[in-house]
């Protein structure tokens, strides 16, 4: 019972079963978005001052001038290693510094030299090194074109929508005296600065003569200067009952990108929308602003819990990416047309008939800092992005198992009986979760003294079964002088401040709450130290953490989040809002690492995220609902996250709000079992739905789905290892592997795990069959359940029953499984492998086997086994991919199943020591399946198996 919570929700969120759109801003209600969107494509007021160009070994700098107001910007252009171009635009001399997002890039990206190819009064051509790639900087108006050969890959400001609201003094509050001071201050700078302050002075006096040495006419008419008119919402903005004081005034930035030849763009999560992004001409732009959206609606561009400002553009020839590194509220407009190119491009390009997508990014503050990732293949874009923001953290193996969650497991007895229920019904699981009710009055790091009186006893009980627990730790801290965490944060001054300098307070689960400033490293260090076993009472090494409400959610704040004029030291919350959740998860993951002395890998789930969040753990799609459409949307939502680096994604199995029908629940388990993060969760108000509560038939269906997950854990683990090493997504859209096949570009109902498993879960109510697209005209695909072989490049109709989960293994792959499913993944550690070798039409196959201890960072010290398995010329062999690595395993190969095989007369195993032995086998002629019985070699050894 939590009547307060219920009442609170009823009050502030309304009693309806749908998102209250009125609680969230449209572009029109967000002053800067409205202002910026009102700008129409046309001649850009910006001009590049080529004479200011400086080219060093690492970068090019150049000033831009806005001919309307004479404000100058500084453009920096970098060629980064790995085929990335970075474009940075800031005010040349801002009134005060503008926010540049720290901590998201894993390092200052290493540069490569740029060289000047040609230059005239109209522009500059720079070489980008590889593959005849060039950047053309056009001067008037300013634009950038990135070319390869005669082909334009991407143009910046080609529609003239570059806009940079320079910081300014508020007119009605500035005194002449200030201007005097300002003049004095400014005059100490070099000559060209004069034109900047001229624009200010011109506000007071039209008759002033401002010499501008770089202006072609060396002067300008004062009446041409745009009298920066004060519009509503520039210095203050009110939404519903909340007023945003804007002491810094307007500060938005915006830039357009043209993508010739591109009809498909993806990414910019988090939105409950299709994988392929839609054009936004007839509605709002896609919004990136981390928000706690109550009962979110599907298929619209509204902002959700997380934001990754990365977009991928794809056509059959090339994949590119745009990473807009800005943490403020951001809107992204997408339009698709065949607008006429600029003059220069007409000349280069010839035709203007090519399809084109135009994208425009608008952010409320900060600077323009954009990374243009030039591919050309999807996997190149993933590596490029990973080189900037890092890769998916390598999760503990156990966290890839099944997670059982509910708001809330009521007490220790409840936990014990649910745990026993899994054993009684022989369903494996690895983690049981506790939501907010486990705490003492929503004071995180504590336990309810009645319901969870002896947490260590409970955790030990789970540990005895080799299982684990996750308890929630949210970032809002109850304001209560008897609460240690609060007192410490307050006394250390770690809370975010309100605009008047006091500790910011908002309402959340505990009532009045403070919000620690996670952007501070000292705060994060302190927070991390709170996870030490002697600090977090009742915690043990099998207790992991879940960060919810970290958008941050503020029940009584504007749009259920923090006031933008709250202060993080010198910076406004406005500048960095979208990174708050990123920092919370960062600090928490750090805490879990530190408590083990740096030995154990952490597991932290977060709801809010930003670019780079992949480094700290898992993400889920928030508070979804028990509806078929929500099951369907889980696929594109997780695919979109995977495209921008966040591979460890899942949706609440069963749906959070409302109660699923039994059919929906079963289908959701079947789908979730094949998605990276596999957790069932349910709202407090819903009836219980543990897997055994729906009759033996459905229990069996759910058991089977969960077991399929567990048999595939070696493959999942391997995929995460690859994701961690290379940044390739685990759950992939088909186009990533088949980039030249347009039939794969808009699939929302099927996906790949790695490149070898294709999954088309049943997500339609009452389905009798599904049609799966099997890609690749040279591929063959094997049904993993029946071993039936299908050709690629076809739409395959698959009749389904309630037990069907259509999954296909690609011919040419080798997938290791552990078929001995036990009650938790840890129990399966030493179990033997079965190798599924699916032959392609050339009768070849390749795969890998990765093994380590599953939970420590020792893999960084080369303590792992990594082998290449390959089948060719009737020989299957295991080769060491990491000869320097050292790790031993008890696991052995118990079975090899070769799909698409013919019957051999005998099979010989040659062990590492050269010893040969015969392997018994069975051959199923109807399906061409050859099963090798108990070859028995150690999984870490060298061996070959020869079919004769």
């Amino acid at each position, binding site marked *: 019972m939590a009547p307060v919570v219920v009442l609170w929700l009823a009050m502030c969120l309304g009693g309806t079963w749908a998102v209250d759109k009125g609680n969230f801003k449209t572009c029109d209600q967000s002053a800067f978005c409205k202002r910026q969107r009102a700008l129409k494509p046309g001649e850009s007021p910006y001009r590049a001052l080529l004479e200011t160009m400086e080219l060093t070994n690492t970068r090019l700098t150049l000033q831009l001038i806005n001919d309307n107001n004479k404000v100058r910007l500084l453009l920096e252009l970098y060629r980064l290693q790995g085929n990335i171009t970075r474009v940075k635009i800031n005010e040349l001399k801002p009134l005060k510094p503008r926010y540049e997002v720290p901590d998201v890039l894993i390092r200052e990206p290493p540069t490569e030299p740029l060289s000047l190819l040609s230059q005239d009064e109209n522009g500059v051509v720079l070489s980008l090194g590889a593959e005849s790639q060039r950047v053309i900087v056009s001067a008037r108006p300013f634009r950038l074109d990135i070319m390869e050969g005669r082909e334009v890959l991407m143009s910046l400001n080609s529609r003239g929508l570059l806009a940079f609201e320079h910081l300014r003094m508020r007119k009605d509050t500035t005194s002449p005296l200030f201007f005097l001071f300002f003049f004095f201050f400014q005059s100490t700078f070099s000559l060209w600065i004069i034109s900047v302050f001229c624009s200010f002075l011109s506000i007071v006096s039209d008759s002033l003569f401002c010499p501008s040495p770089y202006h072609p006419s060396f002067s300008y008419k004062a009446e041409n200067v745009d009298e920066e008119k004060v519009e509503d919402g520039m210095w203050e903005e009110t939404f519903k009952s909340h007023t945003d004081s804007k002491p810094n005034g307007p500060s938005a930035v915006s830039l357009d990108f043209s993508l010739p030849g591109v009809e498909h763009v993806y990414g910019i999560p988090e939105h409950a929308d299709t994988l392929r992004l839609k054009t936004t001409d007839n509605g709002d732009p896609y919004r990136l602003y981390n928000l706690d959206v109550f009962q979110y609606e599907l298929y619209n561009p509204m902002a959700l819990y997380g934001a990754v400002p990365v977009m991928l553009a794809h056509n059959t020839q090339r994949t590119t990416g745009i990473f807009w590194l800005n943490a403020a509220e951001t809107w992204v407009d997408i339009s698709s047309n065949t607008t006429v190119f600029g003059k220069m491009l007409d000349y280069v390009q010839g035709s203007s008939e090519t399809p084109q997508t135009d994208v425009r990014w608008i952010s409320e503050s900060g600077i323009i800092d954009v990374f243009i990732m030039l591919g050309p293949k999807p996997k190149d874009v993933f590596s490029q992005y990973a080189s900037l923001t890092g890769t998916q953290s390598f999760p503990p193996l156990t966290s890839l198992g099944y997670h059982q969650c509910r708001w809330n497991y*009521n007490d220790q007895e409840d936990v014990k009986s649910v745990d026993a229920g899994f054993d009684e019904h022989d369903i494996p699981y690895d983690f049981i979760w506790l939501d907010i009710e486990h705490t003492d009055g929503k004071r995180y790091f504590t336990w309810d003294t009645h319901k969870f009186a002896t947490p260590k006893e409970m955790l030990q009980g789970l540990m005895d079964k*080799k299982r684990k627990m996750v308890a929630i730790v949210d970032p809002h801290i109850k304001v209560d002088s008897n609460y240690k965490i609060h007192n410490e944060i307050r006394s250390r001054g770690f809370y975010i401040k309100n605009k008047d300098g006091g500790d910011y307070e908002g309402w959340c689960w505990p009532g009045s709450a403070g919000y620690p400033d996670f952007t501070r490293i000292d705060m994060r260090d302190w927070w991390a130290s709170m996870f030490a076993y002697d600090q977090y009472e009742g915690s043990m090494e099998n207790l992991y953490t879940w960060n919810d409400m970290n958008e941050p959610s503020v029940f009584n704040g504007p749009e259920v989040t923090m006031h933008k004029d709250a202060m993080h030291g010198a910076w406004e919350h406005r500048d960095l809002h979208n990174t708050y959740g990123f920092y919370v998860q960062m600090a928490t993951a750090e805490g879990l690492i530190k408590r083990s002395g740096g030995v154990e890998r952490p597991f932290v789930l977060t709801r809010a995220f930003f670019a780079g969040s992949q480094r700290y753990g898992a993400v889920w799609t928030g508070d979804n609902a028990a509806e078929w459409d929500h099951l369907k949307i889980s696929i594109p939502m997780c695919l979109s996250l995977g495209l921008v680096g966040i591979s460890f994604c899942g949706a609440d199995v069963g749906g959070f709000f409302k109660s699923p029908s039994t059919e929906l629940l079963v289908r959701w388990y079947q789908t979730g079992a094949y998605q990276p993060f596999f957790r069932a969760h349910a709202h407090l*108000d819903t009836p219980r739905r543990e897997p055994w509560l729906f009759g033996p038939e459905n229990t069996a269906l759910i058991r089977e789905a969960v077991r399929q997950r567990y048999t595939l854990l070696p493959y999942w683990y391997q995929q995460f290892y690859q994701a961690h090493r290379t940044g390739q997504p685990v759950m992939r859209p088909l186009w990533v592997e088949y980039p030249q096949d347009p039939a794969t570009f808009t699939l929302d109902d099927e996906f790949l795990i790695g490149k070898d498993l294709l999954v088309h879960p049943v997500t339609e109510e009452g389905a009798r069959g599904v049609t799966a697209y099997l890609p690749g005209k040279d591929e063959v695909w094997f049904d993993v359940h029946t071993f039936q072989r299908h050709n690629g490049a076809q739409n395959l109709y698959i009749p389904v029953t309630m037990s069907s989960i259509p999954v296909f293994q690609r011919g040419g792959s080798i997938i290791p499984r552990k078929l001995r*499913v036990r009650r938790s993944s840890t129990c399966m550690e030493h179990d033997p492998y079965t190798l599924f070798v699916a032959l392609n039409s050339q009768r070849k196959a390749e795969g890998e086997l990765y093994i380590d201890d599953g939970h420590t960072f020792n893999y960084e010290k080369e303590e792992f086994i990594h082998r290449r398995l390959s089948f060719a010329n009737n020989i299957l062999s295991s080769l060491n991919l990491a000869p320097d690595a050292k790790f031993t395993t008890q696991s052995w190969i*118990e079975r090899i199943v070769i799909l698409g095989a013919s019957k051999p007369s005998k099979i010989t195993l040659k062990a590492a020591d050269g010893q040969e032995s015969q392997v018994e086998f069975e051959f199923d002629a109807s399906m061409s399946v050859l099963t090798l019985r108990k070859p028995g070699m150690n999984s870490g050894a060298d061996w070959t198996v020869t079919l004769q």
Partner: protein
Amino acid sequence: MSCQYHQHLLLPLLLSLLTAGVSSVEVQRPRGVSLSNRQFYEEGKPFTCLDNSATIPFDRVNDDYCDCKDGSDEPGTAACPNGSFYCTNAGFRSSFIPSSRINDGICDCCDTTDEYNSGAACQNTCRELGRKEMESLEKMAEIAKEGYRLKQLLIQEAKRGLEEKKKKLQDIQVTKKDLEDKVEALRTVKETAEQPEKEAKERHLKAWEGKFRFRNWCIFFFSLSVSVAELLSHSELNPDSDDSFTEAEAQVIILIYSKLKITDYEIIVCFMLDLLFVCRNLEKEISFDFGPNSEFAYLYSQCYELTTSEYIYRLCPFNRVSQKPKYGGSETNLGTWGKWAGPEDNIYSVMKYEHGTGCWQGPNRSTTVKLTCGKETVVTSTSEPSRCEYLMEFISPAICQEPSSLESYFHEHQEL
């Protein structure tokens, strides 16, 4: 915590196995095979899977590779996904566990036989478990015995009560007949005598109608000059039956009734109506399902409370369940009597109370009451496993079963 499988063996069987476990000598058979299946595993002879799916050489039994679809060739290893392992558990109850629990590092069989190759440090706890089980069985048997004795008393009492009620009902029906005649006679007198007052009276009656039930008014008449406190104790007089009966409401009732002028006729009409009410209640009680021998009748019109850290829970069997915050706050109805809701073979083991106060965005509250055998009648626990769906554990002798089977069982046991 142990994770025993197939624990729900019948008690007699259990005891006999316990005895057998202690007295018999371990019989040679492949690991994990039960005594009853021993015959199918003949050393040196080809083994036929128990589902007849294949026949394999005997050396493939328990060779850590699954050959039979039903898993019967690997009773002692984890090789088959669907196998089961037999724990002899000498000194305790034998059981089957899924073969996936063999050598998983977790001790499942109390005789440690499931962890023969995992390095898990298991202790043989069978004797200890056997002893504890025996103790608790003895205790349970003792309770069952005493409970059953009490149940017999309850049944007798219920029988007596039922007869009394039937007799009372008969008496009342006679009295009623009498009264009806009197009413008829008085009505004529009254109508002529009190014509002038009639209209005013009707106005009054109209005012009370709907708000107060007429019968309550009557009952009240017979106890004129009651105090507010006394009135409050008659919850049946509560004008709006669902909420609690407040002092203010009681005062209003007294105020209204004290202003009335009452005639003989009205008194008699009221008396008659009251009888009708008593009559109806008796009929209801007589026809109520209090169990096969009315053993649950004693719970009627009783209430039992349980206090937890936050709430006081109140179970009034066959009436309602409620919850009241311990430190002030209003009472919440967790459901009114619905039906017996146990499984078909034991329908009286569960009571269902439904249609309680509605939950925000949720269903109406409801409570499931599970009955178990005990000497006393007491609520032992309450919980809310799902939001607004409460679960109450309730002990009563009325649910106790005849302990005959246990009796014989214990005689056997004492010989051990």
